């Protein structure tokens, strides 16, 4: 049987401990070991963005990070974007703007877009497209995703 390694990190503001095989990706650890299946597997080679999570302040494709590499790090997944039952303005904007259909790409888009708005509260359309260039969608039509990010940015500005 493969050996496993103990990993401790912070996920969505909670300290988590888990065992993983050295070759398991962070994506596999999140989905299969920790039951955090909101992070999706699309391509498993870093090209589609469905598995995007925040790790120590950076967005990363979790399929390209080893589970053992997350030792000591702080991770935010889609499950950590809402505060309890209160959706983040991005989540509200995505569902109101019809910026999602099948929904597999949605968690990655929202995590990546949140990282953008955290850094740049007023991105223009070009900046949104550039930032989200690594997230692929097969069925929704990106136009509505751009509108959703703009709407969320406006909502966050009004709240200030």
């Amino acid at each position, binding site marked *: 049987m493969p050996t496993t390694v103990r990993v401790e990190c912070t996920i969505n503001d909670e300290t988590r401990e888990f065992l993983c095989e050295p070759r398991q990706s962070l994506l596999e650890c999140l989905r299969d070991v920790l039951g955090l299946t909101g992070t999706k597997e699309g391509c498993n080679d870093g090209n*589609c963005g469905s598995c995007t999570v925040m790790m120590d302040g950076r967005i990363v494709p979790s399929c390209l990070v080893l589970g053992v590499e997350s030792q000591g790090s702080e991770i935010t997944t889609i499950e950590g974007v809402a505060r309890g039952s209160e959706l983040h303005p991005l989540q509200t904007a995505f569902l109101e703007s019809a910026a999602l259909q099948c929904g597999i790409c949605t968690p990655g888009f929202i995590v990546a877009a949140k990282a953008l708005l955290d850094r740049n509260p007023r991105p223009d359309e070009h900046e949104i497209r550039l930032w989200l260039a690594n997230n692929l969608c097969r069925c929704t039509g990106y136009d509505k995703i751009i509108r959703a990010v703009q709407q969320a940015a406006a909502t966050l500005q009004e709240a200030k």
Partner: protein
Amino acid sequence: MPNYNWPPQGQRRLMGKRLSRLDGIEKASGYAKYASDLNPPNLLHGALLTAPHAHCRVTSIDVSEAKAMQGVTSVRVIAPAGTEIQWRGAEVAAVSATSETIALDALKKIKVQYEVLPHLVKEEDLKKAGPRAKAAGEQLTGDPDQGFKEADVVVEGYYGIPVITHCCLEPHGQVVEWKSDAVNMFPSTQNVTGIGGDLAKALELPATQVRVQMNHIGGGFGSKFVSDRWGIEAAHMSKESGGRPVKLFLDRETELTIAGVRPSCFGKVKLGAKKDGTITTWESDTWATGGHGGGGSPPIPYVFTNIPNQRKAHSAVSINAGGVRAWRAPNHQQACFMTDCALEDLAAKLNMDPLDVFAKNADLTPRPEVYRNQLRQAAELMDWKKKWHPRGQSGSGTLKRGLGVAIHTWQGGGHDSKAICRINPDGTVEVELGSQDLGTGTRTAIAIVAAETLGLPLNAIRVKIGDNQYPPSGASGGSTTIGGVSASTRKASVNSLEKLFAAVAPSLGAQADQLEAVDGRIQVKGQASKNLTWKAACNKLGATSIAEMGENERRNPGSLISAGVGGVQMAEVEVDTETGIVRMIKSVAVQDCGTVVNLKTAESQVYGGCIMSIAAALLEERVMDEQTGRVLNPDMEFYKLSGIGDIGEIVVKMNMEKEYDDRGVIGLGEPAAIGLNAAIGNAVANAIGVRVSNAPFTPDRVLAALEGRTA
């Protein structure tokens, strides 16, 4: 018979409005559970061993070492010695184990020897196909020889559109458990009602013993209808592992290699026309492949079906590659490409605006007025008259802009569907049917129809789909879902409401047929003050719920739904003649779908169709290696989809004018994904002054076409 007709357009509270989808919260928060998210207790992981050669025979297979591995619970031989394999990636063996890594390690312990056989994996050059090209026989209409003789202008072109894949973001697969008395299947499927029977047949079980459940699916596009070899093997492995659930999803490489493709189409098209642009004669010699079974027969001439003189020859080429599955609007993208690119070339030769050529020839289509209207509307949204220039006259700079247009059609119609509308004594309402929501908003559409019918707010309806224990509803294919489920839901809701009227009529001192359901009340028509709240009315039911059925029969759909739509799509591109890069500036889509149920999700479908077409036009192609017979790009690094920076501006207009609305509900998924591919090809030709024959219009092809012109 009750009056099932839709309320008049002006009186609808919900239908046709922009309403947010009901499953939006769970999808946006990460809590929506797809089949690939399920991790039930005692889960085993399945993995497939696939063939490494495009054409081979298994000479021996030894699984003993894999079987002996700790953690392996089952090993299944799919292709025993002697099996001839016709494409790389075909299933050879399957393993289940206590972890995914053990399953993958076990695959490496399976020893298979193959006799490698000759293969053909490319069909673009018909001469190389030899006997593997099967001609369908010439089809003749009118007198094409005479037609060409009398034509003022004859134009001939070669066009090609390659094999592409579905590339669903959630791959094919399922979790399945085979307990002693029943099989529970949790698939990623477009066919909740039907896939259980399909699996039952393969397992030689009564259909009643297979339960199917699915909440969400991450894309299908026509590729997810059946239980597939991996579903069947996963069930067997579960049985052999004492009934433990087995999860088997394809990895991306296998997904792109064997889980379905859109057939290609290549060939020559020759058009004869009068000098005013009226087409009189069509001649085509085309070929296509959909894999080993041949396949692919585009309906050409597309939309302009009434060209008086036609000669058509088509060959299906069998190759050693993963096979065809329905791909969003099967055969239509290819047919549209072959036809509408030829029309654009005709317009260029006549030095006419293609918009005029398309409009003039609309009389050769089944719906001339629809297309002329849509061409007009699309042209306004594109600002066509201001932007268009004759082919190639796009200025002296290296960045050339151009416009292109294409038109399309799809039948749609409604599949067989039964629904139950349950009105409970506490006022709650449930609609149950064995349908599925592919992400298109089917759940929400069902709730809209029920809420509209019952005079209730949208959130008063609980929609129960995704289970084959609900009344049977058809597979989601061919844009037939919205027709089927809207009609069955409407009828079920009307039938249940009539029962409620009968139950409460005495309390209101009126006859049942004098009652109406409005704004959460049951009231006497014309005497709104005589009313009961919805809840008070339902309380009169005592302890028994009302549960009435509604049915849509595919062959006898009635007036709620119909079939056959038109659509026009336009593209504006900018081509860099130094790099060959084509950049999307703007797309316009004008689409008819009869009565619109939810404008917000209907528009979404069209946006989505546009990005699929942009990807197909500029990026997507399954590339085969002639030497090894492999797919060279079975991953998302080299099998490219368009990204958010690639798509430009998209403008969508749904036709909701009365003459369209009067037709009833018609499906929308397929038509939205047809025309733009050809429109982009035409825009590129308009921009650079020369036709790039083969899609996708990659920089190498654009530069080659430019060099061909100047050489």
